């Protein structure tokens, strides 16, 4: 039951947040089709740290650097 520090609200419980995707999988509107598909469908899926995009129920989007084994959150920034 993660405690995630929302840059706007402070630490809140996991159920108020939603995982969106990894930072490196953001498909830009003007990306060429091949790049867009490669970006969308390829994930490093590391057993370890990953940069992720989450959202909070207050409307804040955030970038988390998070460990996928220990669940430790190493950094959080507003997006």
């Amino acid at each position, binding site marked *: 039951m993660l405690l995630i520090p929302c840059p706007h609200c402070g630490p809140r419980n996991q159920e108020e947040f*939603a*995982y969106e995707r990894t930072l490196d999988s953001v498909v830009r509107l003007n990306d060429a089709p091949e790049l867009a*598909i490669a970006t969308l*469908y390829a*994930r490093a*899926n590391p057993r370890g740290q990953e940069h992720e995009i989450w959202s909070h129920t207050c409307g804040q989007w955030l970038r988390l650097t998070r460990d*996928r*084994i220990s*669940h430790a959150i190493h950094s959080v920034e507003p997006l």
Partner: protein
Amino acid sequence: MGAGRYNALALLRGAITGHRHWGRAWRAAEPRGPYDVIIIGGGGHGLSTAYYLAKVHGIRRVAVVEKGYIGGGNTGRNTTIVRSNYRQAPLQSLFEYSLKLWHGLSDELNYNVMFSPRGALFLGHSDADMARLAERGDAMIANGLDADLIGRDEVARLVPLLDMSPDARWPIEGGLIQRRGGTARHDAVAWGFARAADSLGVDIIENCEVTGFLREGNRVTGVRTTRGDIAAGRTGICVAGNSGHVAGLAGIKLPIESHTLQAWVTEPVKPMIDTVVMSQTLHCYFSQSDKGGMVGGGDPDFFPSYAQRGAPIRLEDSIAQSIALAPALSRLRMVRSWAGVTDMSFDGSPIIDELPLDGLYLNGGWCYGGFKATPGSGSVYAHLLATGQSHPLAAPFYLNRFADGRTIDEVGSGPMPQSR
């Protein structure tokens, strides 16, 4: 088989001799490459692949390397449901092929995997639900599978504990049952395949973690492991839950993300429910094990993790919904909860294909539905590893379908695993 054939007579002999005649179910093999095929991952899928390689394709220089103990990943963590009642034809065909293998598996392996076709029932809670279930059933029958659309009365007769009152939070209007579906003993599947494969000469190497791949140019020639390098003609990844990690050792990114799925079991009680009960509207399912515990689960935890642990809110949800369906469950006590790492592909369907490196293959992306595929998955993967060609049933599950736009999206929820 080294351990001697299993039958009632042998048990009787054991009763007299103190069961001292039983040998190991499988050898504690040491690496002794080169092998024709190395399978990474000693779960049910990997072990069944090895078995069918040896049995069907006559390839016996096969090693299964397992980082821990066999069957310790999702094979030993699932809720043991076996069914083939999918909506999309390629999935129906693959899982039905597997279901047919399940029906003969105990005899095939001479190991009772306790496959028990007690029926897999999807509940419908509205006219709209019933139409969707009918559509699924129609599609199944049209593809040669068995399905019965049943009304309230038969649901109530099959599962007397369900709350059939019309003012229930989710009234039950009927269901779709696949009577040839059911449950099996999950550990036994791994052990049974291991014993059978071992008897055909397959080396099962436990406590042997793959740390990298041996390469010659664009060709994979074996694996680096914690127990040394092992050479192989073909190398098959079969580590669902960890596909992303192992493919990453070869520098390959996959359309797969690892997520958490939890399950729970209650204290054992006398028989309470025969059928496997599932509700797609409520996102929960439960059945009773032979030991007497009610086993159930619900939604995954919605974010990537390899931790094999989840959050209690997901348990609360799936338990609340199960109780809404069967109110008597409320007074049972949960004795244990656990979590597995699901290999979430980006269309919800498995990937069975050669990877961009020569000689390296992948069988993964089973999401939360891999257990029921165990024999079928091993059989078609063995075909791929033996021949280099996809089995016709596995062909739709090729890797490039994402780039081609031929995804097989059973629930139509798109590329994000957390929305599945």
